[in-house]
């Protein structure tokens, strides 16, 4: 390369690059397209909107314009970044494969571009997370400044509550993205001996959607802010001015991000582990990420459904959450916390993983109770779906189920206890090295202990009556989330950054950071338990003068806590930019596979896919083999193409990834639609004396025709895939085309029906849910039809499967097609099942 790019022509190259920057995919083009999209959406909203005031309070602000502006801005952003190119090319029947601009570049610039290199994406997540963390942290300082005085003399209530809402929303966003998005993306492939994740383009898309979400959320301050806190409770969320739209759109984007991250990393861990890496040898961090991805893929789609229901309330006049008009405020509380509680463990589980990953290294011991820890993580993940109504103990919903939720909540202490036991057991007779990452891990144990102990009070119904909604619960979740995950995050930063950047931190500054943070953190949040239990509610901009003394103490501690972050920033800037000192390749003498690689890690991680020989924690076992053989002898073809038969730089999913991915996607689609199903069932059950519909019914004939088209489409497709094996691609293509036409017809029927409905959205719960549910189904079916179209176009390239498999060597186009066609079968069958359930409830039962 250096031979060609001599010294003669650099200037023209640079200039032409600048000229073309708007036309070539990148951040600049993304921003430009986003602005165009925003203006277009605002214009569209003004043309078609305005006639739909919010049912909740009759406000005639044009929410539709702002929401469409946001949506088209995000489309423009994604378009400008270059994400449309690949799906577009698949639609034109292009062969799967990498594009030049998707390959990974060199130098600093690549961190500001779209890339399919999981290591660069991981670092991008960390940069984004730390930036959001900083902004949200400044918000926390502003909150504590306001609370220095009891009478709220610094900010107006609207400003204050917007700061509170931004702090909570951004922290939740950052924290759910930082550990799994940052360290998960960076480390999982290295730890499992893979060269990339399963879906590198989806992995990149998730990151850039998160950036869009953060920007949309921040933009709320330009349109009035939002006063609902991070929970966005209805009907307050129906009532607040335009800025509330930013919250719902941003959380919708976060939901998509979480689902995509979950999909990508789940499939990666299932399908791309190196030979010899059995489930019993999987590193604990990977287990933590694995448990988290299950929650991400199966809880976040519920949030997407909920935010859509909310956006419909604000834009097209539905009444999903308006109690007096046939909706219910409890509906939002249930939908939100069904996501919201697993979200708590989306935050905690990667922290557990980091804790158990790091402890053995610094106790020089094998992990105590490996299986117990795995059961603990999966148990926490499973139980977290069963506890959400403990957020609703005093809400006024029927109290019959309360003992069950109290029990399930307390039961989480059992798998969490496993993780504690494994951590403590690992300390037993170790050779404990008190390094900075180890200090953060030990503090994690202490903080989480306080968080868990306070959780016992909250899960107890009598005690909850006082602690709920007070500063007690606020202190509790800061102990678990900040005391847990943020500490784990810093442990991870100090532990793995030497591998990521090849540079070492200043040890003295790092220890100063730890001790100031640990002392100030406890000084900040311990007194808040008392403040809350004595009667100070959360999210108040003014409070009773009796609480002033403790609040001033807490504020001063919080400022010290903020200052401890400055110590970290100084350390970060000094050690990573100003006075760089190279780190050793394996400064901690870790057995982890990621530490066996050179620093910096090569673009493709492993020259050859390693052969894993033993678990990563065999410290103290003289007979243990090394963790992996990095140069196993394998046939030459494998070294060129990788184990999965694909070229090493190819970002396309492998056949097995496609199949597993389709299943995860189908499960996510079910959860997404379940939000609407739950809304239907809940509102119907609540609706003994409220408004349900206006007496006009949708046509059964119409509904039957739609369902018939979808079922026939699925039947045609099932027969088609059977013929793929026997009759080859030509036999498949005919019936698949029939399936496509029938599916498209069903979408057409849905749209036609939405256009000719005999009721309007304000007519009641049924009318509102009908519209939302049908729109959601149309969205799922549009996605399915796109998928089928790419298959049909792709099939034109393949004469016969056998010939293609032989002819194309390292890039088996037909194998890709067969796998994708099989995955699509799962997805489309799921969509048909969804359609059938909707038909029964919306058309037959009503």
């Amino acid at each position, binding site marked *: 390369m250096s031979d060609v790019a001599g010294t003669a022509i650099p200037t023209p190259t640079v200039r032409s690059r600048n000229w073309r920057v708007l036309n070539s995919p990148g951040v600049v083009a993304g921003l430009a397209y986003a602005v165009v999209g925003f203006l277009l959406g605002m214009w569209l909203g003004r043309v078609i909107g305005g006639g739909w005031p919010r049912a909740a309070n009759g406000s005639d602000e044009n929410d539709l314009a702002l929401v469409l502006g946001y949506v088209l801005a995000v489309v423009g952003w994604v378009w400008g970044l270059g994400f449309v190119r690949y799906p577009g090319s698949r639609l034109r029947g292009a062969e799967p494969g990498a594009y030049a601009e998707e390959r990974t570049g060199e130098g600093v610039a690549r961190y500001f571009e779209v890339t399919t290199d999981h290591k660069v994406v991981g670092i991008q997540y960390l940069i984004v997370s730390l930036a959001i963390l900083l902004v949200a942290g400044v918000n926390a300082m502003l909150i504590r400044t306001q609370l220095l005085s009891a009478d709220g003399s610094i900010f107006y209530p609207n400003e204050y509550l917007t700061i509170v809402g931004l702090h909570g929303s951004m922290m939740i966003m950052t924290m759910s993205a930082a550990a799994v998005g940052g360290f998960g993306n960076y480390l999982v492939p290295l730890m499992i001996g893979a060269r990339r994740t399963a879906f590198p383009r989806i992995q990149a898309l998730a990151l850039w959607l998160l950036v869009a979400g953060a920007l949309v959320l921040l933009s709320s301050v330009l349109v009035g802010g939002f006063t609902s806190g991070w929970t966005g409770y209805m009907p307050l969320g129906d*009532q607040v001015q335009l800025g509330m739209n930013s919250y719902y759109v941003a959380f919708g984007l976060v939901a998509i991000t979480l689902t995509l991250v979950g999909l990508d990393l789940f499939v990666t861990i299932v399908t791309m582990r190196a030979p010899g890496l059995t489930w019993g040898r999987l590193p604990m961090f990977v287990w933590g990420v694995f448990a988290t991805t299950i929650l991400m893929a199966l809880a976040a789609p519920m949030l997407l459904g909920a935010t859509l229901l909310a956006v419909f309330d604000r834009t097209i006049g539905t009444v999903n959450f308006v109690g007096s008009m046939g909706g219910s405020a409890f509906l939002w509380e249930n939908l939100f916390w069904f996501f919201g509680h697993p979200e708590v463990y989306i935050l905690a589980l990667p922290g557990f993983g980091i804790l158990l990953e790091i402890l053995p290294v610094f106790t020089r011991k094998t992990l105590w109770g*490996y299986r117990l820890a795995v059961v603990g993580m999966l148990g926490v993940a499973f139980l977290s779906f069963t506890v959400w109504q403990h957020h609703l103990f005093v*809400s006024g919903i029927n109290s019959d189920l309360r003992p069950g939720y109290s029990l399930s909540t307390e039961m989480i202490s059992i798998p969490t206890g496993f993780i504690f036991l494994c951590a403590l057991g690992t*300390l037993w007779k170790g050779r404990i090295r008190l390094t900075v990452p180890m200090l953060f891990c030990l503090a994690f144990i*202490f903080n989480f202990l306080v968080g868990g102990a306070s959780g016992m009070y909250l899960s107890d119904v*009598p*005690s909850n009556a*006082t602690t709920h909604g007070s500063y007690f619960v606020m202190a509790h979740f800061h102990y678990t989330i900040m005391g847990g995950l943020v500490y784990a995050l810093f442990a991870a930063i100090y532990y793995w950054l030497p591998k990521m950047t090849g540079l070492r931190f200043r040890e003295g500054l790092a220890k100063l950071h730890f001790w100031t943070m640990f002392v100030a953190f406890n000084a900040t949040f311990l007194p808040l338990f008392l403040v809350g239990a004595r*009667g100070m*509610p959360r999210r108040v901009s003014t409070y009773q003068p009796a609480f002033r003394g403790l609040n001033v103490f807490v504020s001063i501690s919080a400022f010290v806590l903020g200052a401890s972050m400055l110590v970290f920033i100084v350390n970060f800037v000094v050690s990573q930019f100003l006075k760089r000192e190279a780190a050793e390749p394996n400064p901690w003498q870790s057995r982890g596979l990621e530490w066996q690689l050179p620093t910096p890690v090569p673009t493709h991680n492993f020259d050859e896919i390693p052969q894993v020989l033993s678990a990563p924690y065999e410290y103290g076992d003289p007979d243990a083999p090394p963790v992996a053989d990095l140069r196993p002898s394998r046939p030459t073809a494998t070294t060129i193409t990788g184990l999965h038969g694909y070229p090493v730089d190819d970002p396309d999913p492998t056949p097995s990834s496609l199949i597993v991915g389709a299943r995860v996607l189908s499960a996510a689609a079910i959860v997404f639609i379940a939000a609407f199903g739950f809304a239907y069932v809940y509102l119907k059950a609540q609706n003994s004396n409220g408004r349900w519909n206006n007496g006009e019914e949708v046509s059964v004939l119409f509904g039957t025709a739609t369902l018939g088209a979808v079922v026939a489409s699925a039947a045609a497709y099932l027969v088609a895939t059977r013929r793929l094996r026997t009759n080859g691609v030509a036999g498949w293509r005919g019936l698949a085309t029939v399936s496509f036409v029938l599916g498209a017809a069903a979408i057409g029927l849905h749209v036609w029906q939405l256009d000719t409905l005999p009721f309007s959205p304000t007519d009641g719960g049924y009318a509102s849910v009908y519209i939302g549910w049908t729109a959601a189904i149309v969205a799922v079916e549009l996605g399915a039809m796109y998928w089928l179209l790419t298959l049909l176009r792709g099939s034109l390239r393949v004469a016969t499967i056998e010939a293609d498999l032989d002819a194309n060597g390292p890039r088996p186009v037909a194998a890709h097609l067969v796998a994708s066609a099989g995955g699509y079968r799962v997805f489309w069958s799921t969509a048909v099942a969804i359609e059938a359930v909707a038909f029964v409830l919306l058309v037959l039962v009503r």
Partner: protein
Amino acid sequence: MPANPHHGRRILAIWFVLAAIATPLVVLVGGPHLPPQDATVQAEHQQQINTILAGVVTPISLAIIVYSLYALVTWRSRQSDAGADGVLLRGDRKVVTWWIVANVIIVVGVVAYGTYDWIGPGVGSGSAQGPTPLARPGGEKPLEVQVIAQQWQFTFRYPSYGGLATPELMIPEDRYVEFHVTSLDVVHSFWAVSLGVKADAVGGADNVVYVRANEPGPFRVQCSELCGLYHGQMYQVTSAVLTEADFAQWIAKQQQTYSDIVPDLPPYAHVYSPTPVNLAG
């Protein structure tokens, strides 16, 4: 230090001494000071449970802290053994079994007692029970008081006194009060701190919570669910527990004061459906 000390026994001994000192201190000395004190039967029950939980949490936390500190002091890597590894120990079935047994006993015990308390003698223990309460007081018919929350104030109605509506909340001592909490707009939460009572106020929904006050005296009422701009100011309510005689006197005075407006009020109901109004969030 002996060559091969029995670490388990040492940790156990240290923990036992500390726990034996700390737990009674926390329970007997700290317990009576725990919120929400003893102004009502429900507050007493909460305080009792808070004390029990403190008694459970203290020895558990001490065990983990004592063990961790002991480990850090005893097994900290020294310069002399740099590079050495810890003992090879992959787990211990017996420890795991005992840990799980202890954990399950604590979980079942805490949940069973908490549930027994609020469904049984605590009569809800101050926690809201929704429209159809599981726990109801026996004996004398409770005094029904409705709490109507709206942005950003509380109104209280006394259906047994002609649907009287007043911004003050007075309740009699030694008699069960049946609060019916509802909202005219967004979600609020009715928190009478020293009564140990909390119930969300939701538009179109009725939320019942019981309380029985032990003695006369003032208490604080405030909103504890974010309800928009002036959420933080929703605490300026004149509220107290009165003796039977004072309560009768207060009712009479209120009826006199508000006699003009009662006919204009909507008839007493457990939920109201006002026309949505355009208020700033």
